[in-house]
């Protein structure tokens, strides 16, 4: 062990492509699974959540209208940068989740691979989910999937990187922008992911990462009229029903939380993209 005095870190939020402190000025200490101090994280407030929604809304036009190929390229680039931070992710996952080095590495590998998997989906979704509809009349009629809009994601509390990637990447691959409330106790991989996103080609505002408390921020996001959908995966179980009720106020799409945190290594299929996709059907007459 070196006797060098460590430089302790105080992390900030990732919001609109920048790294601001919480407007509330609050921070909280992040510890490892044994309670040892790791870093201070910003403790996001409802106003930070509000700002994040504004940033996500502003970014939606650009991100959703980028070509699917371009979105795929940008997301793949994220995976490349993640790979470069592999060791850091491993350390943070191991410390936060209390995993052995080997299991932490496996989780990080799976997370990067999952990101790559979703990056490859961007330009397949329309073909897989869209259709040409053989209507009984002289019309060309087709249906295409389109992103829902701004998705508020309450990230899993336990799986701090693989779980986070598993809920965030599908939202992005399908063309949405995201406001993510990270795992409260294990936010460091999310903070690092924010740094990865900032140094890749993802436009500012497409992803906004709020370190803090899902129980505190969840209701504000669920009730926010300019949020189009919520993923309640990381919501406190006792609060999930209340959040769903709040989300009903503006007819949000709601991805309900699983009974318990799932095995994130399982093949997700399309199940985390379709909840955040709309189908647009277009009719046009066929005539000379």
């Amino acid at each position: 062990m070196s006797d060098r005095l460590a430089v302790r870190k105080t992390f900030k939020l990732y919001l609109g492509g920048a790294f601001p402190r919480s407007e509330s000025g609050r921070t909280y200490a992040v510890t490892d699974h044994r309670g040892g101090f790791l870093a201070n994280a910003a403790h996001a407030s409802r106003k930070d959540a509000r700002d994040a929604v504004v940033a996500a809304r502003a970014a939606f036009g650009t991100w959703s209208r980028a070509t699917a190929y371009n979105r795929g390229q940008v997301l793949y680039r994220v995976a490349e940068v993640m790979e470069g931070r592999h060791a850091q992710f491993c350390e943070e996952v191991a410390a936060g989740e209390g995993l052995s080095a080997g299991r932490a590495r496996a989780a990080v590998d799976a997370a990067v691979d999952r990101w790559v998997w979703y990056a490859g989906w961007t330009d397949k979704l329309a073909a897989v989910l869209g259709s040409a509809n053989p209507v009984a009349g002289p019309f060309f009629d087709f249906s295409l999937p389109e992103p829902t809009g701004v998705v508020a994601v309450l990230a899993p509390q336990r799986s701090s990187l693989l779980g986070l990637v598993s809920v965030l990447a599908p939202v992005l691959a399908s063309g949405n922008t995201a406001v993510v409330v990270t795992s409260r106790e294990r936010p460091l991989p999310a903070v690092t992911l924010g740094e990865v996103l900032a140094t890749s080609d993802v436009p500012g505002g497409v992803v906004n990462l709020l370190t803090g408390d899902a129980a505190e921020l969840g209701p504000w996001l669920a009730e926010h009229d300019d949020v189009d959908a919520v993923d309640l995966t990381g919501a406190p179980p006792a609060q999930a029903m209340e959040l769903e009720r709040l989300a009903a106020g503006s007819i949000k799409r709601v991805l309900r939380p699983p009974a318990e945190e799932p095995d994130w290594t399982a093949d997700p299929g399309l199940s985390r993209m379709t909840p955040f996709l709309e189908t647009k059907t277009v009719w046009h007459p066929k005539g000379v």
Partner: protein
Amino acid sequence: MTSTLSGPFEYAPAPESRSIVDVAPSYGLFVDGEFVDGSGEPMKTVNPATEEVLSEVAVGTDVDVDRAVRAARRAFTRVWGPMRPADRGKYLFRIARLLQERAREFAVLESLDNGKPIRESRDVDVPLAAAHFFYHAGWADKLEYAGHGPDPRPHGVAGQVIPWNFPLLMLAWKVAPALATGNTVVLKPAETTPLTALLFAEVCRQADLPPGVVNVVTGAGETGRAVVEHADVDKVAFTGSTEVGRSIARAVAGTRKVLTLELGGKAANIVFDDAPIDQAVEGIVRGIFFNQGHVCCAGSRLLVQENVHDEVIASLQRRIGTLRVGDPLDKNTDVGAINSAEQLTRIRELSEIGEAEGAHRWQPACELPDRGYWFPPTVFTDVSPAHRIARDEVFGPVLSVLTFRTPDEAVAKANNSTYGLSAGVWTEKGSRILAITDRLRAGVVWANTFNEFDPTSPFGGYKQSGYGREGGRQGLAAYLRNGS
């Protein structure tokens, strides 16, 4: 040259005969294959064109709904779930054929109970309802090819609540996919239009559909609530107002029930200066006066490019002047009766607000029948996006006209709504259609047409117009577990 004949071409009355329908003095609930009494105080259903009481209809309470759900569960577990998919399909084909065979009867009954013109019930509602059963019949034994996973399974019991604007057609949109995918159904028709659903129940018997597969529980909002909130319902599908949709979404929160909602709309119908004007005018008329404007996807906001505003409005007014308003059973009627006194009140209120807010109201010279619920085709010009008639769903024959100068402004105004069900775009320029269509936040975009529907074509909204689709491969997802 001189004319030997002159004078206006007056169309003589051409009423469709009522004799084909046999409206019973009272109707029960359809539960487990039998017509049974309801526990609630029966309600009356009236002909909105005359205010004549057509029949007395049972009202289902919690107890009746519970019986219906139990019947549906039993049918799901014992008969419909285990049935060979091909046989399920054959039942749907039978139903489709029976709807065609009894088409005239359904059309007349629909027009009597709803007030819509016989031309529409005959040429749109009933044929499309039959088409929905034909389409979904074919899916029953092909679901593994629908792209919803290799082993798609039904949810179980579907609780479905439908509106009064297209009573039979909305039934078909709900019941056909539910049955094709192997679910059983408890259906709650609208309070003011229960009769064709009850005739449909008779068709289910005629088709020898096993008891309990389809149950029809009539009643008002409380009955609907009982269906939605019943603990043994697995899947809830609702079409109606955004307000009720919201309360249903709250009611199913925290349960395992899967929900799809098809709610209100305030569609923009965008007319560019290079549009095929005569067809655009037809499209505007069809967009807002089809079914008296009782259409969630009605083109109720006309966005017309400012440089053709006067020309389009003049043509539109001339065209509206030829609309024939009156007896829904007359085969030449274009615009029928408003469905209920309650709806008429709402339309009047919003129209008065429109005038009070400074918009200009235009209505053609119009003689309306003395009895019944009537509202003339109405156009508001000088409407601003801030006016309530530009924002609230009127659900009546009331068009709000706004203008725009550039494509960007058209898109911005079109999307400036909490709704996102449908939109229209009129221009002869193909690339503009595709660009505008891309940017409209609406589930259905009609380009150079309006209010076209087809069972193969997914229908449903963005934003507060709801979620889930009806029709097409995509529509099956709502009724399949792990359906994507």
